[in-house]
């Protein structure tokens, strides 16, 4: 372990502060699933991912991460800043004119850490597979990580990719699903039920593991365990249960905070629940 669990939890707390402040600052963006994935991003970037903050597009010899559900950009931007990809002061520009921190992540403004645009849903898994195939051709055995939203799995392209990866033994790929059970119009169980995702991915040939995405110890161990499963002929799917809005009591578990910004009072209430550990931007 590079950090103790307590240290990682402290980083996640700061990232959560950043998320609510960023979304409040521009009165737009997606706080709910950003908060829900703060522990995953912390574990990934501060513990699991073999990466350099001196960013290159190819990332030779490095693990790569792809975010398919691009709307949770606040959690990624804050994580990248605290990991050292760019100065955290830039977080104040989120969703504002002339910013590198666009509403959805993009390579267009050359923000270090981003390798492809995402936002229009369902495309990230295919891209991650492509990056994995290129690494294989280059004799680079690093890992490819991807995060997908659960509602996003309603997009058909995911299932094209899900069918491709096991058949072609893309086995250095670890895809996590942010299984919070919520989407814009309500619970996924009411909008278009995902039902037994484990059985579905297993039927396609994936090795599926389950983790609690809001328990730092569990997510660190889960991602390390996932790495041990790679190179054995199957892609890995981490079915990661999270709570939308985790860390801010009035947001927890509600799809209403998918894409709504807190007002001043709500911001104060959220920040009171989230200790400032690394210094606000």
């Amino acid at each position, binding site marked *: 372990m590079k950090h103790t669990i307590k240290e990682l939890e402290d980083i996640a707390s700061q990232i959560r502060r950043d998320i609510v402040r960023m979304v409040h600052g521009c009165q737009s963006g997606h706080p709910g699933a950003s908060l829900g994935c703060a522990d995953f991003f912390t574990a990934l970037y501060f513990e699991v991912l073999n990466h350099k903050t001196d960013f290159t*597009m*190819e*990332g030779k010899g490095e693990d*790569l991460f*792809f975010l398919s559900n691009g709307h949770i950009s606040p959690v990624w931007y804050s994580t990248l800043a605290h990991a050292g990809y760019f100065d955290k002061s830039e977080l104040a520009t989120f969703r504002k004119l002339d910013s590198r921190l666009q509403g959805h992540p*993009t*390579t*267009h403004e050359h923000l270090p850490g981003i*390798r*492809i*645009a*995402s*936002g*229009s849903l*369902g*495309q*990230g*898994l*295919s*891209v*991650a*597979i*492509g*990056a*994995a*195939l*290129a*690494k294989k*051709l*280059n004799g*680079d055995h690093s890992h490819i990580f991807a995060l997908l939203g659960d509602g996003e799995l309603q997009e*058909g*392209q995911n299932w*094209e*990719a899900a*069918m*491709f990866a096991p058949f*072609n033994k893309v086995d250095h790929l670890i895809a996590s699903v942010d299984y919070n059970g919520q989407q814009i119009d309500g619970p996924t169980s009411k909008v278009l039920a995902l039902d037994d995702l484990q059985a579905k991915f297993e039927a396609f040939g994936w090795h599926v593991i389950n983790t609690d995405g809001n328990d730092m110890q569990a997510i660190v161990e889960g991602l390390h365990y996932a790495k041990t499963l790679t190179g054995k002929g199957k892609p890995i799917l981490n079915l990661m249960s999270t709570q939308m809005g985790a860390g801010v009591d009035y947001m927890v578990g509600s799809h209403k905070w998918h894409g709504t910004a807190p007002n001043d009072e709500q911001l104060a209430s959220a920040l009171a629940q989230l200790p400032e550990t690394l210094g606000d931007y």
Partner: protein
Amino acid sequence: MKKYTYTEKKDTRSGFGAGLHEAGKKNENVVALCADLVGSLKMDAFIKDFPERFTQVGIAEANMIGIAAGMTIGGKIPFTGTFANFSTGRVYDQIRQSVAYSNKNVKICASHAGLTLGEDGATHQILEDIGLMKMLPGMVVINPCDYNQTKAATMAIAEYEGPVYLRFGRPVIPVFTDPDQKFEIGKAWMVNEGTDVTIIATGHMVWKAIEAGEKLAELGIDAEIINIHTIKPLDDEAILKSVKKTGCVVTCEEHNKFGGLGESVARLLTTELPTPQEFVATNDTFGESGTPDQLMSKYGLDAVNIVEAVQKVIGRKKA
């Protein structure tokens, strides 16, 4: 009228296959992907020599575009192959976000474009793909005119860094361009110098423009014929220079007149040099089943249609 002859007829898709094979030999980063149409796209030679650099994606075009975009991150130069319809409309958003907006070095190679796909009918005969692709910021759009030019274009786009849409077709047509030509993206080819009218043609319509030029010569009309193989970026300079001389223009394409080469030329001319223009193109319609020749005739894409358009536009010039 300069004399053009040919000794054989070949399909432009075979030019693509030959070019891909050559590009693969030259650069080990060239990789190919196909969505279950290897034979139609003539990828066999590449696959035979470079099996590890070929990915069969199956009938899953969206996934193919995404995988291609991802492969560029590892320094690969992916050439995706399927029919033009499934290369564009079916995967527009994947191209828009994962390729064009992300500025990925993907070559989208599209066969069976236009009416000359023939008997399969309108579901497969896309006449809107040039428009779709040219609207994407940063996308290069190329529609070569014969086997040799398609081969040269395929090799040239492997050397170019950035997203490209390469459009070609199914039928065998005359091979009349230089087998050793150097293909320069964005540079028009002067097919015939003339003074009375500028005929601007792309793809399969270039040979038809040559046929029309011969008929026009018999009628005493001296046509300048320009091959625009690169619809974007357009060779503004070549077009303006020619039109300044001739004073009228006919654009020819196997594509809807809405959104095609003709509109690109019209946009240039209305801002720089307002000029009478006629369009030889399909007229906001879908195609249908039939042989390529029957379809080109029925939808007004023959040499005779170019001759008529020239006579009309010259009349407008004089008016």
